[in-house]
């Protein structure tokens, strides 16, 4: 199963968003409307599934200080790329 499929399944199961509405281009916040509490549950499930620690604090800081956009981290295809990078770095 691809990283995208795993993450999409996690999002669908955690937030009750229909699985078919989640695409590689979906913005998890702007398009899927995932709120901060559901996002915590999703990050927890992703951390466990991939054995990683998504650096949410660093990402949030980068977005807040303008060195990154929310799209860089929270559009599905980009989020999955980051997850793959974190998993590869840990391996």
């Amino acid at each position, binding site marked *: 199963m691809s990283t995208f499929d795993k993450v999409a399944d996690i999002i669908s199961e955690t937030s009750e968003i229909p699985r078919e509405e989640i695409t590689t281009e979906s913005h998890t916040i702007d398009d899927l409307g995932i709120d901060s*509490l559901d996002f*915590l549950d999703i990050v*927890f499930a992703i951390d466990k599934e991939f054995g990683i*620690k*998504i650096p*949410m*604090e660093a990402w949030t800081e980068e977005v807040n200080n303008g060195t990154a956009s929310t799209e860089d981290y929270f559009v599905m295809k980009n989020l999955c790329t980051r997850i793959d990078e974190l998993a590869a770095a840990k391996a």
Partner: protein
Amino acid sequence: MHLEYFQMVDRITSVDLAAGQLSAQSTVPEKSPVFEGHFPGMPLVPGVLLIETMAQASGFLIMAANRFTAMPFLVGVKQGKLRTFVEPQTALDIVADLDHEGSGYAVSHASIKSDGKKICDCQLTFKTMPFPDDKFAAMIVGRGRELGMPGDFLPGS
């Protein structure tokens, strides 16, 4: 245990970060204004305060793990089970286990037993944030010290 002041933990009895576990004890007071309402003539510790007790034990475990650099705030309760009534003067054995320490959040599960019988258990999610100011941080550290938090886990150790 001072229910009306939300001081739910009497003492921390052990902290094992390798195992990700904190143990604590409390004794329900004989009298409390809380029992005047919950319930008149039938004093019982409210279930939400048992959840709070497990959350505070988990909170001290999380702060031990991060050396009191950030404070956990309860944001989620899952699979909470309140299995039996808890009456005044009940001795409580509280155990908190750290399931995951993420970036900006942590997840624990915790339980309370009395005389070896499980009273309640749940999974808890916390958002971890910097202390609002040094004075507040010092107060929380002082509270941990009062409860018996081992010095190894306190700032400056």
